[in-house]
């Protein structure tokens, strides 16, 4: 394994679009070469070296490359987007699209992330120590194929649209969530350990949601069917089991209608 360390040297005036900050783009390159990789700030073409000092060479492949950003990336977008292997660690905040369209590897953001974290993710892991803005693990606009695999763990709170159009994978929000959890989902799992304001599972076809705290406004299309004891992300508890969204279409499997499941800690 080889570690490439990026140390921020200045804050972008606008946002820095750093699509090239991924183990895949770094693989096989030395520090100087990495510093010349292209980024965008508005319509201007810039390089990684314009905003970071680069130390260390990358491994031969993405899987053998660890990237550490030793500082804040509040104004840096697309960190780790489309990556397939390796790791990215940010010792601070990151802006939008962290791990967007990601297929593999690990991302660890030690601060907060902005919106669209893990958008259309297919595999790998994202860990955010702080909070996330909106659209965690959502689909791109108009696409009915949202997050398909992988895990996103947000240790703090998250905003609206968590797992919209989700098809697979797991999203864990350890804090509170605002509104719209698993809207339109047709698979996947969302776990919210805190409270949710409302709109949990609206238009949901299939998939699973666990909520440990309270749901302030329950969707009228969810109906309580039983009580179950479960172990969810290391917590054993009794949950009220709801099915829904009864207003939405649902597929049949072996003659039985398949609903989405919502487990609310009793």
């Amino acid at each position, binding site marked *: 394994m080889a570690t490439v360390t990026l140390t921020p040297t200045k804050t972008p005036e606008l*946002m820095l679009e750093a699509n090239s900050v991924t183990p895949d783009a770094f693989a096989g390159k030395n520090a100087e070469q990495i510093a010349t990789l292209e980024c965008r700030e508005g*319509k201007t073409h810039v390089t990684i070296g314009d905003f970071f000092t680069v130390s260390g060479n990358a491994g031969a492949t993405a899987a053998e490359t660890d990237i550490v950003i030793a500082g804040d990336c509040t104004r840096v977008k697309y960190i780790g987007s489309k990556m397939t292997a390796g790791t990215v660690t940010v010792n601070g905040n990151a802006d939008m699209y962290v791990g967007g369209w990601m297929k593999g590897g690990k991302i660890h953001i030690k601060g907060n992330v902005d*919106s669209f974290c893990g958008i259309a993710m297919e595999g790998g892991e994202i860990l955010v120590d702080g909070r996330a803005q909106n659209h965690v693990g959502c689909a791109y*606009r108009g696409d009915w194929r949202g997050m398909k695999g992988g895990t996103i763990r947000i240790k703090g709170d998250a905003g609206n649209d968590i797992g919209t159009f989700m098809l697979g994978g797991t999203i864990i929000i350890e804090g509170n969530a605002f509104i719209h959890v698993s809207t339109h989902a047709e698979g996947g799992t969302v776990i919210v350990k805190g409270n949710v304001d409302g709109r949990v599972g609206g238009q949901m076809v299939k998939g699973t949601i666990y909520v440990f705290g309270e749901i302030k406004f329950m969707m009228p299309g969810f109906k309580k069917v039983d009580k179950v004891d479960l172990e969810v992300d290391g917590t054993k508890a009794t949950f009220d089991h709801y099915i829904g969204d*009864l*207003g939405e279409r649902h597929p049949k499997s072996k003659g039985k209608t398949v609903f989405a499941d919502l487990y609310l800690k009793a």
Partner: protein
Amino acid sequence: MPKLITQVGCPYCGSSCDDIEVIVSDDNKKILEVHNACIIGTNLFMHANDPTRPKLPRMRQADGSMKEIAYPEAIDFMAKTMLAAKKPLIYGFGSTNCEGMAAVARIAEKSGAVLDNCATICHGPSFLAMFDNGYPSCTLGEAKNRADVVVFWGCNPMHAHPRHTSRYSIFPRGYFTSKGQMQRTILSVDPRQTDTAKLADIHLMLDQGHDYELFDAFRTVLKGYDIPDVVAGIKKETIVKAVDIMKKARFCMIFFGMGCTHTDGRNHNIDAAISLTRDLNNYTKCSIMAMRGHYNIAGPGQVWSWIFGFPYCIDLSKGTHAHMNPGETSSVDLAMRDEVDCFVNIGADAGAHFPIQAVQHLKKHPFITVDPNFNMASEIADLHIPVRIAGVDEPGVVYRMDNVPIQFKAVIDGLPGVPSDEELFDMVYERMCELTNTQPVWIAAKEDRKHPANISAVNEA
């Protein structure tokens, strides 16, 4: 002799009424009377007579005052400022014809700008919902000729679209609706008892911000399942009754407005409304329509979709392709995140209609306003360029709220020397090409610019 001009289009609201009659002075310079229009439309036409309308661009001076300058100077400033910016934002188009919208697209692409329109603060969420869920809609004539159940959800046409109810939705007698209002059942869903709600047979006064839950309740009832006794403050019996009315309609028409798009959940409220519309089509005919605010605010959605594939929030800064993701590439988000370094406000008033904090962020950078009149955006701008008023002294195509194109007329002559939006943008584009030493791209729409000598040589098949 004053002249009567009939079938004039009204450049105010999304109803785009084209039955206005205007009497103009003999010299085509003054509007004397306006008939058929609502109070807002009448004021709009009459305001065009205002002798204080700006006739020259004005540039802000070091002492904060504004000084009149010549058009070439303003065009040069606009071209240079936009080219110099890393990411200019162009916003507006609440009152611009489609010709202007196509022309501005060339500037936006050339300068690597973000191109956005008023939908971004109005029906943008409706676009997001259409992206996710489609849009089973129709033209307004279908509503007029067929609809026997009309639902106004989070919209108040009696105020925002004053002639909508008489031209299309409640009162008019259509082909299969010859009894007009007598033949229609009106539902209103609104947290206030609006003047539209007062006209309704049933008003569902829901708890503000809970439209999504109420739509879900409607859908759940439609599917034959039970719902809680009260949803969003509305009793189950009322919901069941409303669903029954919609289901038994021959043609059910749902109009929705800012009550859905400005509140929590934004796009998902409309998303759910579209799902409900779709479900109802399994039982009867049902259509849905956004109550678009301006007479041609559907226009940029159309024009830019055929040019760039996106209706709004179009980030052209990549140079090679367009990128759109509202929340990121939308005007207010760009402003609040300090992600643009030049602001061009065209045919709209960001100064008055953006949250004031967004205005403060935008004002950190060059701020240009293109508008026929003085407004808040012009009064804080570094440069204000006046243009002709589309639909008053400039003709052109506009798209009504149902996306029907209407070819608007000009009723009076424009102020001498004042260009149309299109002319101004074409001049800015040509200046940008000069400055960057590149060839302008003109297509057939611009035969006159491409081949200035051949304008008359039209048809020799």
